[in-house]
């Protein structure tokens, strides 16, 4: 086994196991920190897929942005620590039914498809290509998503704002 493959397996295990911690952890704050490992694992997997730009983006946005947001959310909604396993979760059997069913289905579908054209492009820097694409072929989705982001920002501020008038 090559060192490369061993490293890959290690990364995959890190990702999957941390995701499992997210799913099964009793304390929400543990889940939040496990999520950090998962996001990092994903970023490393992207490197294996020759997606340099996305790997960096994954770190910056998920780890530096969304995860921080989630942790803020966890911390601001306190009383979290007092919750027990029972009160914090729904029935584990029913939930597992959903999860296992989904996993089974996806794996079944993957097994059905041979993915014939396994071309496995060589590595090349993608940042320039992505920038060009965004400003040419993907200009319209890009503009729309910008507006969406702006709307989401304003909406989030509006919703989360303390309503002074009532007080």
């Amino acid at each position: 086994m090559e060192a490369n493959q061993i490293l890959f397996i290690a990364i995959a295990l890190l990702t999957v196991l941390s995701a499992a911690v997210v799913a099964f952890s009793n304390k929400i704050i543990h889940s939040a920190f496990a999520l950090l490992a998962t996001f990092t694992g994903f970023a490393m997997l992207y490197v294996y897929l020759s997606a340099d730009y996305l790997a960096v983006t994954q770190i910056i946005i998920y780890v530096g942005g969304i995860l921080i947001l989630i942790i803020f959310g966890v911390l601001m909604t306190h009383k979290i620590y007092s919750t027990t396993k029972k009160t914090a979760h729904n029935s584990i059997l029913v939930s597992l039914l959903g999860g296992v069913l989904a996993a089974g289905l996806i794996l079944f579908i993957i097994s059905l498809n041979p993915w014939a054209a396994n071309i496995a492009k060589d590595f090349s820097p993608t940042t320039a290509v992505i920038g060009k694409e965004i400003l040419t072929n993907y200009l319209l989705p890009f503009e729309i998503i910008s507006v969406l982001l702006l709307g989401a920002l304003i909406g989030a501020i509006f919703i989360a704002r303390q309503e002074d008038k009532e007080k």
Partner: protein
Amino acid sequence: MIQLNSFLIISAIVFSLGLFTVIYKKNAVGILMGVELILNSVNLNFIAFSKYVDVHINGQLVAIFIIVLAAAEAAIALAIILNIYRDRANIDVTQLDEMKH
């Protein structure tokens, strides 16, 4: 040689774990985490296909948009969660059933 299938399997497992999280957790922030897991697994799929199937990198571009959407979604979701928490000092989604019937 790392195959496409290994990525797909990792993605499938994480996706299932995300779905399980969404159903399993009563905490709204926990559900949000599950959703993030799902979105990440989808991204992984897109990027994997963009390397192994597509001649171009359309998959990566779609992944970028998904990341942006995920960011927006997280912001909105947390705003809503904060609002709910302020309203009832609780973020148990099983109790949020005023709109049934």
